[in-house]
């Protein structure tokens, strides 16, 4: 393998991981930006996405159905949870959200185990994406290129949504100041439900897309929630661009770090986070808290 081929394939690997991390992080950061909620159930919803995706793919025989359907269903579930439970808590302190989302994580995790069983389940990529392409004579999985492309598409879509659409504008206004927004006649309640739903849908999208790489398994929630936190914190809580940068930074450091210093694999993310926070306590693009 030439050095150039090595750098190219590893960079693409890093980008594909960054895409998966981004789906997790951006949902979390949107929710935080708007509602100041640290959603501990984010990992569980990611897992739910993978399992719902499994069933949809199996039932329809079509991965694309899963790719669209799972985020939709999980997003609706999230919006429903906001409507029924979270809505009652906005006047309460952070403790309430912490515990209620922790509770939700346990409930979703166990429900997945009860419905789909304890064994890991296979979600194969669609046949169009199952092959390899040769990049500088080295085989590279098409599926990973697809992840990179999806990451770019979703990032651009969210960015345009926030910048251009009316709801996006309202979300940005409400993130700045909820009282002012409601004084302007904005229906804050509806925005909160939508954003919580969108955040959960993005987590589920991450889950469906990760499933062909790691299978749908009961253990997948435990580790990703921390990854998502780290990315969001590195980028700055509530910052869309920050979550993108955080995901890229962690993706590259992890992939190259695993290669050059595998002994530190467990520590890279935290070292990056420590370094960033010591220099900029609010995260790279965050406001000082």
């Amino acid at each position: 393998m030439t050095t150039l081929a090595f750098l190219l394939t590893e960079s693409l690997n890093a980008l594909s991981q960054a895409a998966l991390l981004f789906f997790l992080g951006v949902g979390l950061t949107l929710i935080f930006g708007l509602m100041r909620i640290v959603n501990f159930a984010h990992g569980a919803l990611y897992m739910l996405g993978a399992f719902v995706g499994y069933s949809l793919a199996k039932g329809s025989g079509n991965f694309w159905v899963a790719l669209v359907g799972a985020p939709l269903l999980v997003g609706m579930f999230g919006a429903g949870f906001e409507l029924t439970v979270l809505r009652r808590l906005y006047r309460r302190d952070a403790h309430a959200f912490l515990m209620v989302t922790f509770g939700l994580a346990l409930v979703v995790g166990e429900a997945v185990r009860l419905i789909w069983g304890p064994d890991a389940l296979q979600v194969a990529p669609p046949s169009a994406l199952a092959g390899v392409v040769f990049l500088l004579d080295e085989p590279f999985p098409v599926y990973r290129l697809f992840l990179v492309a999806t990451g770019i598409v979703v990032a651009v879509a969210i960015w345009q949504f926030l910048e251009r659409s009316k709801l996006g504008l309202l979300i940005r206004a409400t993130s700045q100041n909820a009282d002012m927004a409601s004084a302007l006649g904005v229906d804050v309640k509806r925005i909160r439900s939508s954003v919580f739903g969108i955040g959960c849908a993005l987590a589920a999208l991450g889950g469906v897309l990760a499933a062909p790489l790691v299978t749908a398994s009961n253990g997948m929630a435990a580790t990703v929630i921390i990854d998502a936190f780290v990315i969001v914190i590195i980028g700055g809580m509530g910052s869309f661009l920050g979550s993108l940068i955080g995901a890229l930074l962690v993706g590259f450091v992890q992939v190259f770090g695993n290669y050059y210093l595998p002994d530190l694999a467990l520590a890279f993310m935290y070292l990056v986070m420590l370094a960033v926070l010591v220099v900029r306590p609010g995260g790279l693009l965050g406001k000082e808290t």
Partner: protein
Amino acid sequence: MSKKVGPSRRAMLSVGLAGAATVASPGILRLTAKAENAPIKIGMPLALTGALGSVGQQLKRGAELYAKLQNAKGGILGRPIELLIEDTAGNPANCVRKAQEMVERQNCRLFTGITLSSEALAVVPKLAEWDAVFMSSDNGDGRLTAESFVPNFFRANISGPMGTRAVSLYLRSGKAQKFYALGLDYAWGHNSVQVFEDEVKKSKKDFLGKVFAPTGTKDYSSYITKIRQSGADAVFLVLQGDDNNAFLSQSQQYRLSEKVRLLTEIVDLASIRAVGDAALGLIGSSRYSFTYDYPLNNEFVALWKKEHDGAVPDTFEGEQWQAMKVLEAGITKAGGIEAAKLRPALEDIEIESVKGKVHIRKCDHQGVQQGFMVEVVKQEGIATPIPKVIATFPGESTTPKCNSMTFDD
């Protein structure tokens, strides 16, 4: 690291404790009085949920079928078997607490099925105090019969080093010359990779390098790149659960097996089901395979299918079944379950099991048994690939020296 404990001193201590406990505790006196038909309680603090919940569930099913059939035959020594099954979620703190509850509240003195090595290592030092015997059915950590050995511990299953040894014996006659190894970054991974490295070097082949990934790794691309760059003919994998599934799925997407032969320390059905065709061509040792053609095994598989709507028994279902059989033989021979009687009865016992002869050797309580090599292949009429037995090795050649994890030749 933990010191080596001479069995004799601990043994004497536990006998002494047993005596003292019998005198001191009215509960035990009451129980011994009606021990004739009191149930035999077997404690199983299992990881039924959590990342290794799949393994815990297998152990549970294996034990439950055994207990059901054996109780239908009148139990052991005319006493019914009562399984005390509890979930630990794979957390050693829960495991120790649940086990302690079984001892203190239910007066349970037999354990099996403790799922994770970390759980087993936490429980094992307490066995003497509890005066309890622990028959391992899935713990692979070589240390349990080496540095961490205690007299009340027995292992009916194939250990990590034994699995690795089977792989290396198989390779001696193979064409592959250059090897690389990838293990999980914890005790089991390190031990097994070490055994493998020694074996490769002993057989005068090239060991090109090794790398360890932490449990919970989701992206194996960097490790796959390392394997590809090493130029090895074959890579030895010591992976488990989600990590194993992730690696196999991703290496298939990289077409890794077209270039490098994949060898693994442990092949099990749950993993094959999870990754499907990505497991095809995988060669590895198996702790138990339903495909092993042997009268007792065929009988067991038939029983299992009848009970479970035609499903075949998985690795740890078979292992747990065998562990129960060993325990049964020991209890029958000892005429009771008291550790002081059961321990000598189990030492040097030999039974016919689903995997052939199993002999619990006296020196470190390891069950000496055949090693199996399987290859994952497609079979007509079955959707998921199956592990086919391609070689067996006698127990004498796959079991390490007493109280160690290494091999002489």
